[in-house]
């Protein structure tokens, strides 16, 4: 007991000393050149002309910055998926600062200690609190839209303004326009494929989440927006749950819905895939017996959901191809994925890595 106390107090003293040493290292570094901008909520702000360090209050804004100007990120909302993640080492080694999303509350001091030039906030309702706590660090609102939240209904198809705004703010206009071009092409392509499919012919899908695959998100949920956009019908009519979603359902209910296809979402995906393919009850489902079970690609950032962010742009090609392979024979999915990874994830995929992303585990 005494030793432990001693160790604890030594540790505390160490902590205080480190904290004070680190505190002494502060100096006022202001570039001197600033400019006044109007953010996407119409607030006037003074920001540095050259912004070098950006933090985001949530993962969707983080994804946007990563796609457009990754070198500006001073920290991550969460660690990249995958082991190893398909991103350059300099980005996967960035510190994780957390944020305000899902069920999580960020720590203001963690953010300030990372010395950001600006902080991006995607939900209008939160911005006055953020600005008050961040004091002199400009908090820039980046989601216009009707609801001014990243979870609004039009979010999947409405990223263009944000991409353009951030491109201008971060001095990466060219990259932003490049992303918008890819984004528009993807949306046009999906539109062309699915617009004339009658509702009765649409592929029905169950989105399996959680450890046992018995959690899901219904139609209308932000988590299954990509599915709806790509012309799939979500079979789950469960109560929509906020935040991370994941409403409970049962195998009996899934059997009753009898989906054409199952997509495996959040959770230990490979294990769940094995369970679904080998479990005697799951095996009786039409989707399983016909082999229509897919894992959503997640590395380095999810194409589908978790978070439902701008990386769904590459997911559009994947999803529409998954649902309607016969209608998308003209699509070179592999080339589209490779292009997205090299241009926007800043990582050149090897053929092996590409195959790993697109294939299910054996």
């Amino acid at each position: 007991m005494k030793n432990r106390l001693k160790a604890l107090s030594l540790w505390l003293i160490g902590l205080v000393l480190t904290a004070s040493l680190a505190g002494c290292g502060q100096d006022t570094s202001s570039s001197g050149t600033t400019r006044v901008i109007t953010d996407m909520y119409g607030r006037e702000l003074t920001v540095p002309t050259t912004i070098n360090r950006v933090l985001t209050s949530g993962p969707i804004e983080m994804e946007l910055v990563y796609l457009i100007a990754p070198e500006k990120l001073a920290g991550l909302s969460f660690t990249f998926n995958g082991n190893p993640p398909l991103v350059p080492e300099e980005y996967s080694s960035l510190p994780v600062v957390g944020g305000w999303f899902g069920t999580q509350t960020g720590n203001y001091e963690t953010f300030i200690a990372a010395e950001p030039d600006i902080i991006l906030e995607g939900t209008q309702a939160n911005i006055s609190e953020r600005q008050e706590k961040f004091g002199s660090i400009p908090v820039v609102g980046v989601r216009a839209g009707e609801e001014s939240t990243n979870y609004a209904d039009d979010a999947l198809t409405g990223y263009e303004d944000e991409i353009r705004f951030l491109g201008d703010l971060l001095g990466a206009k060219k990259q932003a326009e490049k992303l918008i071009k890819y984004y528009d092409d993807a949306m046009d392509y999906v539109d062309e494929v699915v617009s004339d499919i009658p509702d009765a012919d649409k592929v029905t899908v169950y989105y399996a989440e959680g450890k046992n695959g018995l959690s899901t998100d219904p139609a209308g949920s932000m988590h299954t927006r990509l599915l709806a956009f790509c012309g799939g019908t979500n079979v789950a009519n469960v109560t929509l749950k906020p935040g991370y979603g994941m409403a409970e359902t049962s195998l009996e209910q899934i059997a009753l819905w009898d989906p054409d296809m199952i997509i495996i979402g959040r959770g230990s995906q490979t294990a769940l895939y094995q369970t679904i393919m080998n479990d005697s009850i799951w095996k009786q489902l039409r989707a399983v017996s016909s082999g229509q079970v897919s894992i959503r690609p997640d590395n380095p950032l999810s194409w589908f959901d978790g978070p439902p962010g701008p990386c769904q742009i590459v997911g559009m090609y994947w999803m529409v191809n998954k649902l309607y392979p016969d209608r998308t024979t003209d699509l070179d999915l592999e080339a589209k994925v490779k292009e997205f990874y090299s241009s926007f994830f800043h990582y050149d995929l090897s053929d092996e890595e590409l195959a790993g992303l697109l294939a299910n585990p054996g």
Partner: protein
Amino acid sequence: MAKVSLRQNRFGPIRFRGMGGVSAAVVLAVVLAALFILSFAVGRYPISPIDVVRVLASHVMPMDHTWPEILDTVVTQIRLPRILAAMLVGASLSLAGASFQGLFRNPLVSPDILGVSLGAGFGAASAILLSGNIVAIQASAFAGAIAAVGISYVVSKMVKGNPTLSLILAGMAISALFGALLSLMKYVADPVDQLPAITYWLMGSLAAVNMRDLLFASIPMVGGIVVLLLIRWRFNVLSMGEEEAIALGVDTGRLRAIVIVCSTAITASAVCISGTIGWVGLVIPHVGRMLVGPNHQRLLPVSLLLGAAYLLVIDDICRVAASIEIPIGILTAIVGAPFFVYLLNRSEKGWA
């Protein structure tokens, strides 16, 4: 009025015996003052204690502003409101808990026994559903809390028999009712933006507290605290039992009403700024009894100081332990429960 000492009770004081004439309250006040100052130096953002002192001092005396502006933000916008809120909420919940435990003569009573938390939750949820702004939400939460306790009180008045027992039973029933209404609100809320707002509000956090909220909440809080402290000796009379108290000339009905109003006002304000924080109002009064015995004359101030210090330390841990916020309700239980068991073991006399 005679001051009744209950020191021969089985809850014997276990500490401060060898401390001569120094009262526990004075010691605790000094400890609290030290914690208050130390808490400013605690946080994820590294600031040296000297800088903290300089930033704080610059508000009371003219000084050259030689430090980065961000230090002002951290100290005055982030740390100061939280430190004050943690102390106020901790003090309020503990004092309300000690008062209710004395009033009901029951050590298992917590401040939300009459439905104050669920009433506040229901009020807040209603305002969120009606798309009220933050002021409307706080006001509605406060009104809901008062309504729940008011109904409990009125219902208990209609019941014949032991007033204490009927108050507890009425409180349980009204809590259940408001709990159900709150569930209904959550059920009909829009799951995309209203439900998360309700959940977030119920979870409670000191992270978002600002000086404006604090100022509003502190008016009923400080008022209730002062009244409870002023009438604290009467609790001893109450704890002797209904008939004895009446025989001693105490109007127990009126006293009960005053205690309920004051405790509700301070608990409701605490819930409004921090959400429901469990364990503080239940446990801290017990710790207080272990220190100074069950005499309310000393127990109430000691509980108040202990509660303030306890929640301040817990919130300091919430602020530094991880790079994201740890919900404070989780830590009050994780730290509080083992500590409580430890104290039970140390207690010289049996507990049950």
